[in-house]
């Protein structure tokens, strides 16, 4: 067994990161509450949550799929892993330094929740946070398969990681939204909102660093 996390641990991390993104108000669950209240029916809440989830998934896929394809370059595996880790660390540092939010977010209509969710997840590097986990999972299932089938397998893993992450996100965020909508009331919106900007950026640096260490240890570069 190589250094690093086991497959179970990696999948657990994928699920937990989904829940983390889901309950973060900045990723949108209060918008689902608002939609439900504006239309006075829970279906509107569910629909909004669904739109948020689609945008979020696409943002994750956008981050994972290029790596799924790069992994096919078996000879360069180590380089891919190290650069991915550095990219994640770098983005985390960028977010730590640059505290400003992109203004383009404010130009998106309230009705374009899917697009908003995609842009907000991309801007926060939500997908990048999963890249090290994804690479870990791909490595776990490496064998002597041909590059082509390896790539197909990696793309499949990418889709699966995105799906599991988003399901966890929608369950956590949607659950939170439902409880606020149905039981706790709007006070919980301000009440449950913490400024996670720095924690978020630090998580990226942490995940990226772990992945870098594992990559270096296993690769002997």
């Amino acid at each position, binding site marked *: 067994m190589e250094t690093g996390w086991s497959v179970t641990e990696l999948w657990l991390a994928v699920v937990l990161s989904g829940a983390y993104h889901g309950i973060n108000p900045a990723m949108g669950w209060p918008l689902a509450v608002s939609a439900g*209240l504006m239309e006075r029916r829970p279906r509107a809440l569910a629909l909004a949550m669904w739109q948020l989830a689609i945008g979020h998934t696409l943002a994750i896929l956008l981050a994972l799929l290029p790596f799924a394809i790069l992994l096919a370059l078996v000879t360069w595996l180590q380089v891919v892993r190290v650069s991915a880790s550095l990219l994640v660390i770098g983005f985390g540092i960028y977010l730590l330094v640059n505290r400003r939010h992109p203004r383009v977010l*404010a130009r*998106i209509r*309230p009705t374009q929740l899917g697009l908003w969710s995609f842009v907000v997840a991309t801007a926060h590097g939500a997908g990048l946070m999963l890249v090290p986990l994804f690479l870990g999972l791909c490595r776990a299932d490496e064998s002597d398969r041909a590059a082509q089938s390896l790539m197909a397998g990696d793309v499949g893993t990418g889709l699966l990681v995105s799906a599991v992450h988003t399901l966890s996100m929608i369950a956590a965020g949607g659950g939170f939204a439902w409880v606020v909508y149905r039981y706790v009331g*709007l006070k919980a919106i301000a009440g449950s909102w913490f*400024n996670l900007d720095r924690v978020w950026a630090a998580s990226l640096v942490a995940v990226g660093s772990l992945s870098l260490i594992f990559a270096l240890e296993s690769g002997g570069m």
Partner: protein
Amino acid sequence: MNARPDKTFYASPKLAMEAEAENFAYTLLLSPDASQPDALAVIDVRPGSPSYSQIVHTVVMPNKGDEFHHFGWNACSSALSPLSGHAFLERRFLIIPGIRSSRIYVIDTKPHPTEAAIHKIIEPEEIFRKTGYSRPHTVHCGPEGVYVSTLGGAGADGTDGPAGIFIMDCETFEVLGRWEIDRGPQQLHYDFWWNLPRDYMVSSEWALPPQFENGIVPEDLLANRYGHRLHFWDLRDRKNVQTIDLGANHQMALEVRPAHDPSREYGFVGVVVDTTNLEGSIWTWWREGGQFHIRKTATIPPEPASVDRLPPLLQGFGAVPPLVTDIDLSLDDRFLYVSCWGTGELRQYDVSDPFNPTLVGSVHIGGIDRRTAHPNGKTYAGGPQMVEISRDGKRVYWTNSLYSTWDDQFYPDGVPGAQVMARAGKEGGLELEKDYWVDFPQGYRAHQIRLEGGDCSTDSFCYPSA
């Protein structure tokens, strides 16, 4: 940046109503002859405090002749929408435009209102250069930053091009540029407000700067040359989608007050004067089937007066027009307060049915002919003008000056600054509070009021009260 959202941000109007009452009021002071710098007064409104209804702090500006009028906060409850991306802004800075100088002051109200101080000054040249607009007026914080409406276009007299809205960065207060991408037929500007989740804006018209800066121009008014249209905008598209003309005789549709609950797609606007009969009026606008509509829903008649009690401007009419110069809507969207600056009356309408405003309360104070004194015996010059309602809807504050040069035409004896407060009954009814009277420094007039922690004409909400 805070670790938690500002505790004066409220998800819904209902939560804002239930929150702790205001402790301080901020009132703009203007020197009508520009002999002194304009100022911001901080007033203690804590019942039982030894300095109750007194100015406890004043921020005096370094320039003269700015002419303060309206102002607003850098951030409000709208930050609680994830769409804003700015949940951790603080309600901290007051943005005060000078409508004569085109200068903007940013005042820091932290660490305590009594320590408020100038944070930044934006010189007129920056606004001219970056926006081509002049005479900044109404301030609202919104999705793209701080929105500021202007009364003038470019050029010395502000008539070179249309007036409009520009945007400032909500953290650095840098002027970013014009807001409009497609203004359609809009040329004049006054007030604006919006429904954020429904993504539309409504704006109103006053007049060209030469029609107000040196006083009202009677010939222009009688020829119906002041503004009389409302413009409806797609907020994110920055595009005028519909313009409705109220009819040329409905001169000066000024204050726009949308329902606070974003699930309600209607609002009100006040018309200063109908030139055919001197009436003031309240109009209700609404959106239905993607289209905006508007209807006159209340009128206020002029009051006959003997010529010797009237200023020269009105002597030919033998009557005092009510002059609806400001309106304000309580946070539960139930009571609409209407200033009748000419007749000296503050009216309270129950607008539970927005198409059928019902007069349920009234207070007389000042007025061109009535000249009603305050219950404490003091003379109140001018009439009720800028109104501000406490978030809980129980206290209604107002001041008495309209605009330096217009004050002199309608109230030639002068309008020394006054600020009073009335208590509103739960089911309606309005009564002046005997013990609330703010004395302002000599030579100053009082204009708009803002309340600590937000009030009924600043905050925009992104969640319904239900």
